[in-house]
């Protein structure tokens, strides 16, 4: 009886082990057909999963795209870096700044226009590095709740970055924190408005010290910023114009102005070095950069796409020639130090 039980138990365990192994084998077989795309959830997830573009990709290429969604740009790159030695994702898309720090760690493979023909259709500015391509970009905006403005009798913001310094906004502002990509843009913008630049950041911090006590919260995502602007906790914020447009589409009662000179932020994509499915990765990136997909992103989400054939951009891509760009390498190198100053000297101010 004892012997029988032992045999039966051992057989069951062995059978389970065989089953588990064969299940693993099955998923490994299917891997060649799946392209893993590491990027944000949010609007990209909506595009691929809810708005039918994932299916269109399969129809066009025979591959299936599987989204690996993360919340923030740096988080996307952190996930990619974690897989540096044995990548499980194929294509990565994130903000330009974190993309460049990932590239410094050698995680991306060079892109070849022979294998990804749509690379040739992107404007020159999009080809910033052999290992990456800018898919689309956004320009920054000042977002505000016009109801609160009317109630308080404030004039609506003008198209100027110095509006961020208006003293009446004290206690009603939301800004992205300096440890996020957009927060770094806030700091550099304030430095420029006050006579400095990313190379001379002092005026930026001085301005931030004046504004910080009036910043009610430093939200890291546009959804959270939208929530504060909607519930009246705040009345003015700084974020990309595409996000401001998305807030409006979600019913948040905000308006936005795009100050001049335009301040541009890029979204970059690349293929992981030693990607599990390099062919699928190239097919996906080529499809993602295509006129059809980018036209959809421009019309539905207000992205300024880099594809020269797209005519639906909210602002013409040629206008970006005059847009302010920042010295990304310098900003990435200074980032840790600036975050330190922000956490110690700016954040406690209230």
């Amino acid at each position, binding site marked *: 009886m004892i012997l029988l039980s032992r045999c039966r138990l051992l057989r069951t365990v062995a059978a389970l082990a065989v089953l588990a192994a064969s299940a693993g084998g099955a998923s490994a077989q299917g891997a060649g057909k799946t392209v893993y795309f590491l990027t944000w959830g949010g609007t990209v997830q909506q595009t691929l999963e809810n708005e039918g573009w994932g299916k269109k990709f399969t129809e066009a290429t025979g591959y299936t795209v599987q989204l690996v969604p993360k919340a923030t740009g*740096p988080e996307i790159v*952190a996930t990619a870096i974690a897989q540096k030695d044995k990548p499980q994702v194929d294509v990565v898309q994130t903000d330009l700044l974190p993309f460049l720090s990932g590239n410094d760690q050698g995680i991306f493979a060079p892109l070849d226009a022979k294998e990804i023909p749509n690379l040739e259709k992107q404007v020159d500015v999009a080809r910033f590095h052999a290992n990456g391509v800018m898919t689309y970009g956004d320009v920054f905006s000042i977002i505000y709740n016009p109801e609160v403005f009317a109630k308080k009798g404030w004039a609506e913001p003008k198209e100027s970055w110095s509006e961020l310094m208006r003293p009446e906004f004290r206690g009603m502002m939301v800004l992205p924190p300096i440890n996020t990509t957009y927060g770094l843009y806030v700091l550099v913008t304030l430095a420029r408005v006050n006579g400095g630049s990313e190379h001379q950041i002092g005026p930026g911090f001085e301005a931030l010290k004046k504004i910080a006590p009036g910043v009610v919260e430093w939200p890291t995502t546009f959804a959270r910023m939208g*929530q504060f602007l909607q519930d009246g906790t705040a009345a003015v914020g700084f974020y990309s114009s595409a996000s401001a447009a998305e807030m409006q589409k979600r019913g948040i009662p905000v308006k936005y102005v795009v100050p001049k000179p335009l301040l541009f932020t890029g979204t970059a994509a690349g293929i992981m070095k030693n990607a599990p499915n390099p062919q699928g990765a190239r097919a996906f990136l080529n499809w993602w950069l295509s006129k059809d997909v980018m036209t959809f992103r421009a019309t539905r989400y207000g992205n300024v796409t880099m594809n020269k054939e797209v005519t639906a951009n909210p602002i013409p891509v040629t206008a970006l020639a005059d847009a302010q760009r920042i010295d990304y390498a310098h900003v990435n190198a200074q980032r840790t130090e600036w975050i330190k100053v922000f956490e110690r000297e700016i954040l406690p101010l209230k």
Partner: protein
Amino acid sequence: MTTAPVTAAAPRAALGARLGGGVWLFLGPAIVLMAAAYLAPLFDTAVISFHPNTPSGIDRGHWILGNYARLIDDYYWSVLVRTLRVSVIITLFSVALAYPVAVWLAGLGPRGQTWAILVYMSPWFVNTVVKSFGWTLILGNNGLINNGLRSLGLIDAPVRLMLNETGIVIGLLPGHFLFVLLPLWAALKGLDGNLRWAAMTLGARPRQVFLRVTVPLTLPALLAGAIINFTMNMAAFAAPALLGGTRTRVLSFIAYQVNLEELNWPFGGALAVALLVVTLGFVMAAQAAARTR
């Protein structure tokens, strides 16, 4: 007298004997899972924390203590103190609130107890993030409480109930309270009624019976619940992030931020190890204090 434990342990021993060496086939998966999914990453995190961080990644060729030296910095120290303060406050509130509830619960009929426990478990039926967003509707400047107080004419400016430590305490207390309540309720339910009766026959008043019989006998359960509650408070992430705000960061959030936003894994590792050591230190101190009592 000694036969009871032997017979109770016998079936367990028999199962082990029946399986022989095969017992490892059953223990194996759990051990492998723990080793691969918990101990190995934890060990790697600890190892990484002794390496320097460079723009091209972790420099595994060098060993340093610099990441731990950074922890003494005022900023991280203040975050650690805040994390401990908030955690202890939640534990104290939980203990104070759980005792009367547990006494009341233990006195209910079986059906009443089942329903009441379900009510107290209900915060766990909702996702933490959704729950925290729900709290923002109640605690925000234009939330239920502030609007209510304004319409009653009690306040002019909104009372700040979130984006501070108050928000974290309010957000975590209803869920974490359960982990003090459950062991306490079980201990009170299992308490031999004869002991209280015996105390009363010897002339003890109800208050004395409670303080000198009930409380000492349920103290181990209370302590166990408080320890679980405290460790959960120390490790909480979503509610502090959403209800505490950027100015009121706790250590778990800073570790996340350093790892995933600043991409500095060695220092993030040092923060994680510090959180583990401090939490374990507190737990062991509480256990030692209970033993010496």
